[in-house]
């Protein structure tokens, strides 16, 4: 572990079950995240992304391996110490926003600050700043139920930043947002890294995130590999004609020895209903 790294995870393994039925959701993953770095972790569903994120976030104990977060080896800590680490050193952003419904926007943002010894004293000013920066001034007294998806996620980001943690863990933060709000959230996370010098680990399927990432890691079958310098392999969805990255595409099928990728399940179903009508529609201009 060097000072430039906020996170150093080494040889992380998470196995579920035992014997022949044992599944290694994360298999010998090592990962270093530098300060002020935005790292994207991509991979198909069930590849172990959330499991990896949970172990980094101190929510799940690895079967073996070590996680050192901001100089503290959290895998060596007992259970009662981990909530304090999470409150102080990690900001969580979830796909489902996960705001506390009984609290207003401002109270949600300030919630993690109440978990630290100083309470909300100093955090009030920072909450003001974040509310202003994230365009939530008009909504500060609103309840989550009255917010749009984009607003909810901005509140969640502000909540993740309130205690000024060195590391933000974002799990599919654009998964429940439309393209405009998804793009906005991506840019906010990018600004968090650029302006505040915090590190962000972003788990997503959203290819737009690649534009803001410093590094892209690919997790598949529990193993991690760097994908920064690999080129996209753009192909067209044979049904709707949308451009899809063959690398990250999850909806695929094989026909006569050829692999077809789709943007959505609906396109796959239409293809499977009458493939002859769509064959040959996959070429893409470089």
């Amino acid at each position, binding site marked *: 572990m060097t000072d430039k790294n906020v996170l150093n995870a080494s040889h992380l393994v998470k196995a579920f079950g035992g014997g022949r039925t044992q599944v290694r959701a994360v298999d010998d993953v090592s990962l270093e995240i530098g300060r002020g770095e935005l790292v994207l972790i991509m991979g198909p569903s069930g590849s172990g992304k959330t499991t990896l994120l949970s172990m980094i976030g101190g929510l799940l104990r690895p079967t073996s391996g070590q996680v050192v977060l901001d100089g503290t080896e959290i895998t060596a800590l007992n259970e009662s110490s981990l909530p304090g680490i999470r409150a102080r050193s990690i900001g969580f952003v979830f796909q489902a926003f996960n705001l506390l419904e009984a609290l207003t926007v401002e109270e949600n943002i300030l919630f993690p600050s109440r*978990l630290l010894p100083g309470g909300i004293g100093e955090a009030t000013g920072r909450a003001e700043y974040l509310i202003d920066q994230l365009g939530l001034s008009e909504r500060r007294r609103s309840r989550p139920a009255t917010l749009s998806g984009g607003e909810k996620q901005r509140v969640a980001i502000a909540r993740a930043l309130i205690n000024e943690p060195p590391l933000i863990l974002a799990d599919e933060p654009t998964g429940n947002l439309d393209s405009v709000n998804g793009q906005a959230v991506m840019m906010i996370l990018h600004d968090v890294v650029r302006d505040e010098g915090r590190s962000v680990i972003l788990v997503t399927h959203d290819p737009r995130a690649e534009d803001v990432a410093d590094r892209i890691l690919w997790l598949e079958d529990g193993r991690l590999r760097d994908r920064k310098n690999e080129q996209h392999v753009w192909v067209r969805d044979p049904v709707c004609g949308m451009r899809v990255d063959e690398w990250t595409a999850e909806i695929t099928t094989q026909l006569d020895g050829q692999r077809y990728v789709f943007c959505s399940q609906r396109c796959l179903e239409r293809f499977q209903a009458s493939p002859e009508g769509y064959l040959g529609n996959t070429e893409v201009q470089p």
Partner: protein
Amino acid sequence: MWQWTFKNMFSTPLGLASSIAAAGCAFSLVMFFEAVFAGEAEQIVAYVEHADADIWVMQRGVSNMHMSTSYLSDWKATQIADVPGVASAEPILYLNSVVEAGGKQWFSYVVGLDVPGATAGPWAMVAGKVEPGIGEAVVPDVLARMSDVGLGDKIRITDQNFEIVGLSDGTFSIANPVFFITKTDLEDIMTSLDITSFVLVKAEPGVNPTDLVDRIESNVEKVHALPAKQFVINDRQMALQMGAETIALMTVIGGALAVLLVAFTIYSQITRQRRELAIAKALGVTNRTLYLTVAVQACVITLASVVFATGFTLIAIPLTNAFLPQVTLLLMPISVVRIGLVGVLVAVAASIIPARQIARVDPLSAFQA
């Protein structure tokens, strides 16, 4: 944290109010029951409390009136009257007996008064004479109304009939209504002459009753003398002791019911907010803090229930007394304190199951979309 806890608690005000009311009703039941016993105990001691005496003298080994038997020879009353410092010594004869009035039977105190000039008779009258003559009785007014009898009607004590000549006030209790007849009539009923149960002593001005008690016991053989205050305390304790086990049982039942209601309220709240608890845990809230919030919620609900029960009982008691004069209800401060202490136990017990539920909430579930 507390802001979140209380906002969550009050997020379903109707449900919360129902729970408080339900647990409050359980506590009210216990309070009401205690009030019945306390009221009845007060009525049982009403006679000894109102008797105009500084000292009660009785048979050795006896120390109260309720449910007890005391016999002294009449001449001892004369001896007591002669003790220096005694201003007056009035004998009464006393019997626990069934009295028949208007076709109903009442287990009663029958007090035989040394007439004429008795001062140990009824202390307040609704109608008629305060002092009965031979073949006459003064009966509690409430009992007379319940038995549909009045002045001039007859009542029967064991095998003898008596004419009602007076209706007394404050002498009725369900367990022991107090009837007054002459000592001579009661001696006749008991087929014993020249006996006394208690001697009511008045001290001369400036004489300390405690000193006089010692003097009476040393001057008159085989008697037990007690200052009136102590005699009343003993009688009240005896009366309350009779209901103690029933009250304890009712308290346990009411308390258990309240535990179930409070625990269910918190349990359902936690079940409803399981996901938010997972989020809170993921964000760094400790199990210990969440346990504390559960305990505080249980305390708040229980406290509110006790307040509800106290208020409800305070309103219900005068209403009950107004509509059911035969029942005397009395809410003692000690009952409220006792229910409050039971409430603390209820809150602790009601926190246990929800706390275990909290421990099982997995913060990882916050990642589920």
